[in-house]
C-alpha cells in the first residue's frame, strides 16, 4: 500500500487557470483503516454535490485521491467550492500532458513560467513512472525534466531534501499529470461520518461557528432554535433560517427545528427569582433539545458556549445548566477567544447575518444582574415546584416545526412571511 501523501501545503493557486484537472487529496481520516471506504464515499458524494452545477466535470476516484477533470468548467470557482468539502486536505491544479518526453518537457516549462518562482527558490522535480511501458525510469526522468528547467531559470537552486517548489510528474499510460501547487483544503472528517448532534442555534455569532466546527469534525447537525413571538420578531426567525442556509452550504441540507418558547419563558418570570431566569431558560432549552435529540436519533448537543463570555457561561453556570441533560454536551468554542470566533464566522460566511440587530429570546428578559454562580439545589427546587413544568416542555416539543433548509432552496417555516405570498416572481 502506498504511503499517504504527506505534502506541505504551499502555493497561492497561481496555476489554477492553467490547469485542466484538479487533484483532491483526502485528509487525516485516511489513517482509519476499516472506515476508510465509507469515509471516501462520503467525500465523493459531497464533491458530486459541489460539481453538480458544472455539467462537463468528470470525477474519478483513486486511492487517497479524487480527480476532477474540468473539461472547460471554471477552475477558480470549483476550487473555491471544493476547498470547503470536509475531509479534503489539499487541492493541486494539474496540467495534463501526453505521455511522451517532448510534451512533458514543454508543459513543465510552461508550468514554471506561470508559477514564476523568485530567484533563489529551492526546487526539485519528482517524477513517478506509474506506467512501466514509458521508456525512461523515474530517476532518469527527474534529470530529464529538471535539467532544461534549471537552464531556463538560472535563479533556481536544486534542493532534493526540502525544496520550496516541487514539480511532480506522474507518468501514466494515457496521460501524464504535472503539478506544483498544493492549495489547503478545509480538512476534518467527511460529512456525518461521526454521527449526529443537535445544535442550539441562537442567531448570534458563536452558535453557527460551533455548528460549522462540529460539521468539520464529521458530525451531522440539526439546528434547534427557540423563539418567543411576540417578544421576538419575524425578522429574528428569518435570520435563523438564513444562517441555517449558510451552514447548509457545507452540508447540502440541514434540518431546522423551530421551538415556540414563549410559554416556557414567561412561566419563569412570575416566580420572583429574576437573577436565575437565564439559568432556568438555558436548562429548559437543553431539556427540549434532549427530547428532540431522542426523537431524531442524535447522540449529543452542541452549543456555542465560550468559557466566561457571559453570565451563563461561567464555570458554575455551565455546571448547573449542563446537568439538565444526560447527553454529552459538545462545546467546540469553549476555550476560544472571541476574536478568533469572529474571524471564523467571517470565513464561513455567517458573520454578516449574525450581527443583524434582531433580539433573540436570550437577549429579552435579561435581568439586571443575572447570576454567575447559580445554586443547583435552588434551581432544582424551582423546577420541581413550577406547576405544569414538564407539560409546558412537552407542549413546546409538540408544537415544534421542522424545516429542511438547502443551500439554494427557498424553504421557510409555515408562519414566517412566505416569500411566495407577497412576492410574485413574474414581477421581476
Amino acid at each position, binding site marked *: 500500500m502506498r504511503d499517504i501523501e504527506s505534502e506541505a501545503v504551499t502555493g497561492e493557486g497561481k496555476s489554477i487557470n492553467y490547469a485542466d484537472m484538479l487533484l483532491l487529496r483526502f485528509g487525516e481520516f485516511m489513517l482509519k483503516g476499516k472506515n476508510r471506504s465509507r469515509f471516501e464515499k462520503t467525500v465523493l458524494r459531497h464533491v458530486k454535490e459541489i460539481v453538480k452545477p458544472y455539467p462537463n466535470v468528470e470525477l474519478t476516484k483513486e486511492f487517497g485521491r479524487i480527480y476532477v477533470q474540468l473539461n472547460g468548467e471554471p477552475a477558480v470557482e470549483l476550487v473555491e467550492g471544493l476547498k470547503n468539502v470536509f475531509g479534503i486536505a489539499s487541492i493541486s491544479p494539474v496540467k495534463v500532458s501526453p505521455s511522451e518526453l517532448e510534451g512533458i518537457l514543454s508543459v513543465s516549462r510552461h508550468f514554471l513560467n506561470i508559477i514564476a518562482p523568485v530567484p533563489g527558490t529551492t526546487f526539485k522535480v519528482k517524477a513517478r513512472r506509474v506506467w512501466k511501458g514509458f521508456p525512461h525510469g523515474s530517476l532518469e526522468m527527474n534529470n530529464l525534466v529538471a535539467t532544461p528547467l534549471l537552464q531556463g531559470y538560472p535563479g533556481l537552486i536544486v534542493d532534493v531534501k526540502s525544496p520550496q517548489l516541487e514539480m511532480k510528474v506522474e507518468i501514466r499510460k494515457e496521460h501524464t499529470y504535472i503539478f506544483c501547487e498544493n492549495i489547503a483544503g478545509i480538512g476534518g472528517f467527511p460529512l456525518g461520518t461521526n454521527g449526529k448532534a443537535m445544535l442550539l442555534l441562537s442567531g448570534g455569532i458563536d452558535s453557527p461557528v460551533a455548528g460549522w466546527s462540529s460539521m468539520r469534525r464529521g458530525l451531522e447537525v440539526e439546528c434547534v432554535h427557540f423563539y418567543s413571538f411576540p417578544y421576538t420578531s419575524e425578522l429574528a426567525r428569518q435570520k435563523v433560517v438564513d444562517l441555517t442556509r449558510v451552514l447548509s452550504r457545507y452540508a447540502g441540507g440541514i434540518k431546522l427545528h423551530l421551538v415556540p418558547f414563549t410559554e416556557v419563558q414567561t412561566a419563569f418570570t412570575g416566580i420572583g427569582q429574576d437573577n436565575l431566569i437565564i439559568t432556568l431558560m438555558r436548562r429548559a432549552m437543553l431539556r427540549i433539545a434532549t427530547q428532540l435529540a431522542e426523537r431524531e436519533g442524535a447522540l449529543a448537543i452542541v452549543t456555542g458556549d465560550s468559557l466566561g463570555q457571559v453570565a451563563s457561561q461561567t464555570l458554575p453556570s455551565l455546571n448547573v445548566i449542563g446537568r439538565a441533560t444526560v447527553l454529552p454536551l459538545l462545546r467546540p468554542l469553549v476555550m476560544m477567544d472571541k476574536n478568533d470566533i469572529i474571524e471564523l464566522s467571517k470565513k464561513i460566511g455567517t458573520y454578516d447575518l449574525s450581527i443583524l440587530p434582531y433580539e433573540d429570546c436570550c437577549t429579552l428578559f435579561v435581568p439586571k444582574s443575572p447570576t454567575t454562580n447559580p445554586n443547583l439545589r435552588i434551581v432544582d427546587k424551582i423546577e420541581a415546584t413550577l406547576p405544569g413544568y414538564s407539560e409546558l416542555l412537552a407542549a413546546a416539543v409538540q408544537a415544534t416545526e421542522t424545516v429542511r433548509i438547502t443551500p439554494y432552496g427557498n424553504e421557510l417555516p409555515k408562519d414566517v*412571511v412566505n*416569500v411566495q*405570498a*407577497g*412576492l410574485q416572481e413574474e*414581477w*421581476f
Partner: protein
Amino acid sequence: MLYWDYAAATPPYEEVVQTMEQIMKLHYANPSSLHRAGVEAGKLIRRSREVCAAALAVKPEELLFTSGATESNNLAIKGAALQYEGRGRHIVTTEMEHPSVYESCLQLQKRGWEISFIKPERTGIVDPDRVAAAVRRDTVLVSVMHVNNEVGTIQPLREIGNLIKSLNSRVLFHVDGVQGYGKLSVSLKEWKADLYSLSPHKIRGPRGVGLLYVKEGVMLSPLLTGGSHEDGLRAGTENVPAIVAAAKAVRMSGEQREAFADRLTPLRDRLLHFLRGIPEFLLNSNEDGAPHIVHFSYPGMKGEVMARKLEELGMAVSTQSACSSLLAEPSRVLLSMSRDVSAASGGIRISLGDIHTEADVTALEQAIMTAVQALKIVEGGMK
C-alpha cells in the same frame, strides 16, 4: 408621429407597467415598518436588488436604489468627494460628461476643488493617456461616461480604468453607464469601476428610480440623510413599485442586449450612410459608436429649427441632450470635440429603439430630405 428620442426617454415595457400597477395596489406598505405588510415590501426590494446584481454580475449589497441617474451621479461624485476629502481635493473628468456629472464637478470647483476636464479627440473619444496624465497622488475620483448621450461615442473604459489604477491604486473610478447598459456589454470588473450609475427609464423601465453600484469597501458620504434606508447611504422611503419595475427592466434589457444591437446596427448604419450623402451635414457619430445614436450637425442652421421642421413632418428628434436642449446655446459636447460654434449650435440627435423598422427609417430619411430642401432656401438669411 414617429418617436426618435430613445436616448432621452423610452416607452416602458408592457410588463413593467403591469408590475408597477400590481405592486402599487398590493404593496403600498412602508418597507421599514415592522408589520408583515412592511416585511413583504422589504422582501420585494431585496429581490429587486438580487435581480439587478445578477444582471450586472455584482453583489446585491453593492447596489443602491436612488431617485434616478442624476441622483446616482451626484451621490457618486459629491458623496465620494465629501468622504475622501482627506486624500486630496482633485477630480479628473471629461468635457463631454452629462450635466449631472459635469455640474456636480463645477459645484465642487466653486468650493475649492480642482477639476481636470479632459478634452476628447475630434472623434469624441477620450484618449486614456490624457486621462492618466491628469491623475495625481491627491486625485480622489476619475469620472468617465460609458457612452456619450449626445453623439453616442464609446469611451475606452477598460484602458482608462487600468491605467489610472496602475498610477494611483486608491483613486476611485466612476462610470456614468446610462446610455451604455442594454446596448453594449458591461463589465465593471474589467473596467475596474468603483461606482456605476444606471437609469431604468432609458431601458424601458419606470422613471423616478435609479441605480448606483458602489463597490464593496468604497464609502460614500450620504447626500440625503434621515433614515437608515439603503444601508444609510440614501435616506427616504423606498419607491417599491418603481424599484421592482426597474429590476424587471434591467433584467429584460440586459437579456435582450445582443438582439437589440443586432437589430439596430443595420438601421443605424443605413442612416449614417444616408446622412453622409447630404453635403450640408456634418456627421458627429460613426459606425464605431453605440448602436442607437446617430448625430449630425447642420452648420449654420440652429438645431431647434431643424427639430421643429422635422416635427412638422412627423418626426420627433432631439437637439443636444434632453437635459440641455432647452438652452439656446451651442452644445458643450460638440465644442469639446473641436466643432466650431455654428456646427455646435446645429446638432440633431436621432436615437433609435427596438420598435423601429426599415420602413420607419425610410420615412425619416424622406422627412430629413424634405426638411433640408425647405430650410436651405432661408439658410443664407439666417446668418
